[in-house]
């Protein structure tokens, strides 16, 4: 997968939140094969310094970071957070989230497009967390985004691909744009399904972090994503409504 001129061998982008321990997070990243992990910025206590220890752990993993603007509810908040993230993490990449609803964590697509345009103008390479809405996708591309990341289902819900038709339409509508399903994936089979649709990658966190054995689940996702990609490239057969015998009927006895 190529995004913003960077070729990634792994199509799994992994989140770093919610793991039982830093050691389990590190092992999950290793077994996932992910080359990109998502990170965030939060208020730092002058005494605890939790952020410094976390950053040291991530740097030791030797992976590329994709900072997010999680929790931002306006374009202005997201823009300021992105600017702060660029300085701390030393990357122009930003996973842009502008949240519009507390319950569903649904993107505020109006604020998203506004922030994407401002950040692109400022030299950022924006990975927008969006919906499967095609018009919003067009607006994000117009704003300078070179990758789109539609949700599969609400963040952390583990419900998989809620709108299969919409995601399929998005793939067909943007054949040359890298598309990454971001959020809502709960099982490797769901990630595999997205890859079979022709999606370029999967970004997930909770499904791995909240598994009984996160490192094992990370590897399971890596395998499923590879399988789905191979299946897509192998061009699946079209489904049929009626049965079609696979064993030849020519030469059948007793006829």
């Amino acid at each position, binding site marked *: 997968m190529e995004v913003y001129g960077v070729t990634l061998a792994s199509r799994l982008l992994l989140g*770093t939140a919610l793991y039982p321990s830093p050691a389990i997070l590190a092992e999950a990243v290793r077994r996932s094969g992910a080359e990109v992990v998502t*990170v965030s910025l939060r208020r730092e206590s*002058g005494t605890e310094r*939790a952020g*410094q220890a976390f950053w040291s752990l*991530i740097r030791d993993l030797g992976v590329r970071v994709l900072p997010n603007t999680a929790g931002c509810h306006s374009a202005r908040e997201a823009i300021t957070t992105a600017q702060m993230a660029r300085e701390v993490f030393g990357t122009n990449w930003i996973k842009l989230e502008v949240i519009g609803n507390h319950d569903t964590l649904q993107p505020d697509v109006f604020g998203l497009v506004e922030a994407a345009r401002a950040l692109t103008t400022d030299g950022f390479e924006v990975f927008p967390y969006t919906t499967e809405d095609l018009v919003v996708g067009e607006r994000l591309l117009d704003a300078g985004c070179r990758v789109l990341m539609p949700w599969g289902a609400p963040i952390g819900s583990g419900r998989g691909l809620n709108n299969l038709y919409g995601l399929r339409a998005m793939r067909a509508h943007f054949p040359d744009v890298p598309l990454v399903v971001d959020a809502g994936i709960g099982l490797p089979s769901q990630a595999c399904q997205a890859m079979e649709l022709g999606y370029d990658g999967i970004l997930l966190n909770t499904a791995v972090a909240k598994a009984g054995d996160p490192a094992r689940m990370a590897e399971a996702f890596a395998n499923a994503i590879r399988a789905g990609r191979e299946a897509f490239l192998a061009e699946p057969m079209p489904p049929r409504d009626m049965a079609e015998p696979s064993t030849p009927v020519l030469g059948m006895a007793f006829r």
Partner: protein
Amino acid sequence: MKILVNNEAREVAGPSLADALDELGYADAVIATAVNGDFAPARSRPTLMLREGDRLELLAPMRGG
């Protein structure tokens, strides 16, 4: 002067943002700063003068999805 640091009231002498960070124990921390909702780049900290009531945000790397 009284300012808000990560939404907590603090008393600092300042006068610059860099001075305040030193006082607050963040001199060697990997953090990004914002004052009154606007990003304050690291290079601006020595010359950015704080004022009474300023809202300072100090953000550090954290886990994220």
